[in-house]
């Protein structure tokens, strides 16, 4: 299907409105917000469901249904009607009087129909607004939960008493190590570092994204090591969708650089 097979089955369920796991639903909707390919697949899956609908085609509705519809659309024409032609002076009064009772009844009937439609529309709008409100509340709750988790991670990373423990094979010294997590779709990355060497005040570590098309390395954020040699960084790229073949780290002046300054101090292992 598409480039994200992990969503394939959930997408099919979603197209049918049959996905009811809140976590899966939230994750998929979040993904659909950023992935055009999966949105297109969703449209194709809806077309597949339309094919399924064809299996039910057969019986025709009774004639009264057609007339009922035509009466309804006649009662609410979309185009503004032309202004009525003025009556000839001298005949207006007598005609009006002769048709007055009928006109009043017609007006009342039309008014009743319009009122009925308005009440029905209002009820439908209220139901739709209520459903929308519930959906928004659920979304807000999910967003708050994600925010809470992100804050908890951030608090832990920056806690004054955070104890970073690296476990290595016995009888070896801990090696400086950097780990990155990069999402092409989100255009963001996260980095954690351990056992880094301290840098002078006027120097900083800078991460570089190496585009897979061979173009120039792109700045991907700066970070420093704390007194224990640990570092942490979250960085949003200027745009999403950049294919990366790897990352590298150089040491730059404290305000950073637009191009990497050799040597490369960290590269993919």
């Amino acid at each position, binding site marked *: 299907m598409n480039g994200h097979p992990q969503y394939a089955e959930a997408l099919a*369920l979603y197209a049918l409105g049959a996905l009811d796991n809140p976590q899966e639903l939230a994750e998929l909707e979040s993904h659909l917000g950023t992935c055009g390919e999966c949105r297109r697949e969703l449209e194709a899956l809806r077309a597949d469901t339309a094919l399924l609908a064809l299996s039910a085609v057969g019986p025709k509705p009774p004639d009264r249904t057609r007339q009922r519809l035509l009466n309804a659309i006649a009662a609410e024409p979309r185009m503004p009607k032309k202004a009525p032609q003025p009556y000839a002076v001298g005949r207006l009064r007598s005609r009006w009087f002769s048709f007055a009772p009928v006109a009043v009844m017609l007006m009342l009937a039309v008014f009743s129909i319009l009122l009925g439609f308005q009440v029905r529309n209002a009820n439908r709008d209220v139901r739709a607004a209520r459903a929308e409100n519930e959906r928004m509340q659920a979304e807000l709750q999910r967003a708050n939960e994600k925010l809470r988790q992100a804050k908890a991670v951030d608090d832990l990373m920056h806690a004054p008493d955070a104890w970073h423990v690296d476990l290595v094979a016995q009888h070896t010294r801990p090696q400086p190590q950097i780990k990155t997590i990069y999402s092409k779709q989100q255009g963001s990355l996260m980095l954690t570092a351990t056992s880094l060497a301290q840098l002078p005040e006027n120097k900083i570590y800078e991460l570089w994204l190496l585009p897979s098309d061979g173009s120039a390395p792109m700045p991907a954020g700066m970070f420093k090591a704390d007194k224990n040699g640990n570092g942490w960084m979250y960085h949003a790229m200027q745009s999403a969708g950049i294919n990366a073949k790897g990352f590298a780290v150089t040491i730059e002046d404290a305000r950073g650089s637009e191009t990497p300054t050799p040597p490369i101090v960290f590269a993919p292992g």
Partner: protein
Amino acid sequence: MRVSGTQAPDHKDDAALIARMRAGDQSAMADLYDRYSGVVYGVALRVLANTTAAEDVVQEVFLQLWRNPQAFDAGRGRLAPWLAVISRNRAIDHLRKRAPEEDIDELPISTGIDLEDEAARKLAVEKVRAVLTQLPQDQRKALEMAFFEGMTHTEIAGKTGEPLGTVKTRIRTGLLALRKAFA
């Protein structure tokens, strides 16, 4: 004005009817009804198994199209599949006695399958039914429970006693089998 039954209408006919309907031409709406009421009614009747309720869905779907003709974007799909899915969703709403879950205008459907010609539509119906009969029974059942009964995958798993993952796979595989048949 009715569309001639002697000539097979093409996509332009639909586009012309929709343009006229958007301009407020009630006869164009009548023509669209004549062409597609069978699709809308058939789906609603299958879901609701009640002719009166299915007629209500037909009324609702076409009236919404009349009130909000911009809802259907011809650039993003054909009218027949769109009406079929809208009809199914409205019927499920009736079935579950709930307010509509999504606006009529938020349902892009991507398909190049032409269902405007009545003869082509009949062929497509036969083809779909043939594909469905060739599917493994469990797969077809899962698909129909989700589409025509509006059941979630958890509900289907609960009713059939199958694992959730199996239900998911069956539904997706079934839909793809339909797509493949029309590719």
